[in-house]
């Protein structure tokens, strides 16, 4: 039986193209590309899908489409709760801390004066991040009180509602590198270092991928994290510290163009396998609940 797979994406980048090619080569898949810019919400429009893979670049659009489909017959990779948790660094950190996953120390403040007090609590240097940002955008390393006052004042004058939330994180010295690991359910596909001349190591900012051999400790922390987030398909960013590996951020619509150059595992293939599996698991549950 064929699986009706939708890929939600308004922008076809290298990653989406690889996923589309992989899906088109598989006989068991009927592929529909869903461009959210063209969508006028009507649940019946997507009800023909068995599963929808979120590859949407706009987090606002992704949130809404996934939430509108929550509870429908369409399986979601990842589900709305995971998208919501990963899309907000404060939610991510609180969730990880609750389950005892090692993370950098952090504070969330809701006012500029409280933010300044939180900075002083964490000590310098400290990192100020937008709760909803990506690609190292508007991330600041603050090294002293004067810089903290100026950065927080500037941020308090920005328009987006998310800038009224101050997410502050302990700065971890990593010699300008972090680790990105890819996990689908309980399986870690692979991991790569991202190295840069800058302390911000995002690939979007020029971070270069280098091989990182999988270790038991990395696999353990990453699969545990995936489990906490519902056994999802995730890119998990980690920092090496004198306290061991720390989870820094989690991405639920993983970018892998650069990392796949140094990872043996086939990320598009494994992500698609996982997505199809989600549709089939749900089908099986439905069959068991409604015997013929």
């Amino acid at each position, binding site marked *: 039986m064929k699986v009706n797979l939708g890929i939600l994406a308004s922008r076809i980048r290298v990653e989406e193209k690889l996923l589309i090619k992989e899906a088109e080569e598989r006989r068991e898949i009927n592929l529909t*590309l869903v461009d959210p810019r063209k969508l006028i919400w009507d649940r019946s429009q997507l009800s023909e899908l068995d599963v929808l893979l979120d590859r949407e670049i706009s987090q606002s659009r992704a949130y809404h489409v996934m939430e509108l489909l929550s509870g429908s017959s369409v399986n979601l990779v990842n589900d709305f709760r995971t998208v919501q948790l990963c899309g907000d660094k404060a939610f991510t950190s609180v969730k990880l801390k609750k389950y005892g996953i090692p993370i950098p120390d952090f504070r969330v403040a809701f006012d500029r004066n409280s933010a300044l007090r939180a900075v002083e609590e964490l000590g310098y240097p400290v990192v100020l991040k937008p709760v909803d940002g990506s*690609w190292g955008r508007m991330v600041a390393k603050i090294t002293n009180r004067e810089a903290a006052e100026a950065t927080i004042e500037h941020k308090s004058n920005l328009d987006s509602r998310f800038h009224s939330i101050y997410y502050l994180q302990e700065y971890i010295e990593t010699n300008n590198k972090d680790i990105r690991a890819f996990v689908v359910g309980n399986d870690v596909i692979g991991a790569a270092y991202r190295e840069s001349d800058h302390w911000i190591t995002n690939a979007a900012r020029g971070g270069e991928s280098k091989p990182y051999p999988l270790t038991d400790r990395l696999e353990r922390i990453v699969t545990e994290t995936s489990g906490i987030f519902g056994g999802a398909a995730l890119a998990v960013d980690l920092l090496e510290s004198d306290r061991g590996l720390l989870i820094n951020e989690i991405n639920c619509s993983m970018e892998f163009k650069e990392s796949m150059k140094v990872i043996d595992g086939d990320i598009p293939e494994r992500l698609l396998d996982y997505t199809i599996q989600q549709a089939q698991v749900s089908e099986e549950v439905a069959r068991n609940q409604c015997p013929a």
Partner: protein
Amino acid sequence: MVNCPECETEIDLPEDTIQNEILDCPTCGLELEVVDLNPAEVDLAPEEEEDWGE
């Protein structure tokens, strides 16, 4: 064959081009979006927005 809307360079789209695909103009380097395939048409790709990411 399409023309870059910025510098008018002629661009040959590969056969496996997909609707909404992003490509760089080989001359001016601007990001272009394939907005139609039949007939082929490109436009300037939308600029990065604050909520973009992964």
